[in-house]
C-alpha cells in the first residue's frame, strides 16, 4: 500500500513543539488500550517532555481539534490493517482517498470512526502530516491488562514514535 511507509518523515523539519501524540482506546478493554498505555509510558520519558501527549480515550471527533494547528500528529491505536496479531504498522496518511480505500479498521473510536474523521479533515482542508501507528490486538474483551504478545511490542512502538519525531 503506497500510504504505508516506514519512518521516512525525519526530513520534515518539524520541531518537537510542532508534534502532538495522541493515543486512542479504552484501557479497560485489554489490547484496545494500547494507545492509552503508550501515552502513559511516553509521559514518563524525558525524551517526550516538550511534546504534547494526549490521552484521546474513545472520542473520534475531537481529533479534528487536535489536528488543527499542529505540524505533525502521531496517532497510536489498536488497528486491524490486515497485519498479523501483534503486528505494528506505521501508516502515513499522505493520501486520504487511498487510505480510505484500504481495508482498515480502527477499533477504538465510539462516535465517528477514524476513516470518517480523516475524510472530514480532508473536506475541511486541514493540512497536517498524520502518522498512525497501529497494533493489531489479540483480545479486546474486558480487562485492564494487555496480552503478553501486545505488551512486548511497547518498546518497539516507542522506538517508532521516537524515529518519527527525531529531526
Amino acid at each position, binding site marked *: 500500500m503506497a500510504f504505508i511507509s516506514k519512518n521516512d518523515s525525519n526530513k520534515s523539519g518539524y520541531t518537537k513543539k510542532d508534534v502532538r501524540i495522541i493515543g486512542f482506546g*479504552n484501557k479497560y478493554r485489554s489490547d484496545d488500550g494500547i494507545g492509552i498505555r503508550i501515552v502513559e509510558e511516553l509521559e514518563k520519558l524525558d525524551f517526550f517532555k516538550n511534546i504534547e501527549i494526549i490521552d484521546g*480515550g474513545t472520542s473520534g471527533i475531537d481529533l479534528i481539534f487536535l489536528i488543527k494547528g499542529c505540524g505533525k500528529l502521531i496517532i497510536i491505536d489498536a488497528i486491524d490493517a490486515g497485519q498479523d496479531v501483534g503486528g505494528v504498522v506505521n501508516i502515513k496518511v499522505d493520501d486520504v482517498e487511498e487510505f480510505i480505500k484500504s481495508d482498515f479498521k480502527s477499533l477504538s473510536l465510539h462516535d465517528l470512526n477514524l476513516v470518517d474523521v480523516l*475524510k472530514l479533515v480532508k*473536506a475541511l482542508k486541514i493540512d497536517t502530516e498524520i502518522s498512525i501507528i497501529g497494533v493489531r490486538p489479540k483480545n479486546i474483551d474486558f480487562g485492564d491488562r494487555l496480552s503478553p504478545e501486545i505488551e512486548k511490542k511497547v518498546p518497539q512502538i516507542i522506538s517508532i514514535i521516537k524515529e518519527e519525531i527525531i529531526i
Partner: protein
Amino acid sequence: MVNNLNIEVSPVSRVEGHGDLILDVKNKKIEKLIFKIPESPRFFEAMLVGRKYDEPSHITSRICGICSVAHTCASIKATEKALDIKPSKQTINLRKLIYHHENVQSNVLHVYFLAAPDFFGVGSVVPLAETHPEVVNIALRTKKMANDMVRIIGGRAIHPIRTVVGGFTKLPTEEEMIKMKEILKSCYPDLEESLEVLKTLDIPDFKRETEYISISDTIDYALYDGKIKSTDGWEIDDQNYLDKINEKVVQHSTAKHCWASRDAFMVGALARFNNNYDKLTDNAKKYAEELGLKAPCYNTFMNNIAQFVEIVHNVDDSIRLIDEIMEEGLDEDKAMAEIKPGAGRGVGVVEAPRGLLIHDYTYNDKGRVEKANLIIPTGMNYANIEKDMHALIPTIIDKSEDEIKLACEMLIRAYDPCISCSTHLLNVKLVNK
C-alpha cells in the same frame, strides 16, 4: 409499495457503539422486529468489585468517551452517599458547570454530526462538510467551546481528571472563570444561526405517547441531581430507584430491557424536556417555541430538537453559575470534603446526555466495593425503541424499502443511542422482501 419486507440494517451507522435492527414484514404485518445488540456486555460492574472508594469514578469514566463526566459524577455521587461525604456547595456548582458542557459536547455531536446528515439528505457529516460547510463549522466551534469549558474545569477535555470523590483536586482560577464566561458569551451568534438552520429541517410527523422518565429538581433543569420523576405521575427519591425501575434480560440482546409503570419508557433530552420544561431559561424556552417544540411532546424525532434547546439552556445557565461561583469567591478550603472510608450503600443518579444514569455501590467496612449495579440510559430506551418501531412501520409501509430502512435508522438515531455503554454499533436488517 411492499407487502412483504425483510430488512436487516447491519450496522445502523452514526450511533455510538454497535447494534442491529431486524425487521420481517409479511402482508404488511410485522412478523418479527428485533433491535439486537450483538456484542458482549461491558463488565464494568464486576471490574469495580474490590476497588477502593477513590477508584470507581476513574474506571467508570472510561465506559464511554462521550459520557465520561456523567459516569464520573454518577459514580462520585454513589460513593459520597455510601460513605456519607458532604461536598461543598462550591463543588456542586463546579460539577454542575462541567456537567453542562459534557451535555453540550454530546448534544452537538449528535445533532450536527450524527443526526443532521439525515435531515439534509446526505449520507454522513463528510458530504455535509461539502454541501453545508457553515453547519459543520458552527458544530465544530460549539464543540470546541464545550471542550474548552470541560478542560478548564476538569483538567482535560476528554476524560477529565480533577473531578473526584469529595470535590476537586484543583480549582479553576478567577481568570479562568472570567475567560469561560467570555467563551460562553461568544457562542450566541452560532446558536442564533443554528436556530435558523434547524427551523428549515423537515422533522418526521410521528407521535407515540409513552412514559417519560428523568430526574427533576425544584429549582434547576435537573442534570446533575434531583428526584426521579415520571410523566405517569410519580416521583421518588433517587436512592429508591429500585421501587420503580425494573430490569430484565431478553434473549436477543446482551443489554437488559427496562420498564417502570408500563412495559417501556423513554429517557433522554425529550424526557427531560417533558418533565422539566418550566425550569429551562427563558431564552431556551424562546428557542423551543421557535422550533415548534412544546411540552409534552410525543414525537421521538423531536429529541434532536430538545437536545439543541438544551444546548441553549446549558450556555445560559453556565453564565449564571459562573456569576454565582464568582460572587461567593473560589475557596481552596472548600475544594475537598473530609473522607472517612467505611461501609455503606449509595446510589448516584444523574442525567447523562442520553438520559437517566444510575450507579449503585455497596462498600464494605474496608471502604472497598462489594457490589455494583450500573443502569445506563440506552439500556432503558431499548424496549421503547422497539415499541416506537412497531408504531412507525405501519405508517410508512407503503414507502420504498430504502425509505423504510432510512426511517428506521433515523428513528433509532433520534434516541442518540450510545450502545457502546451497554455494549457496543447498530446494524439494520429488513428481511423477506
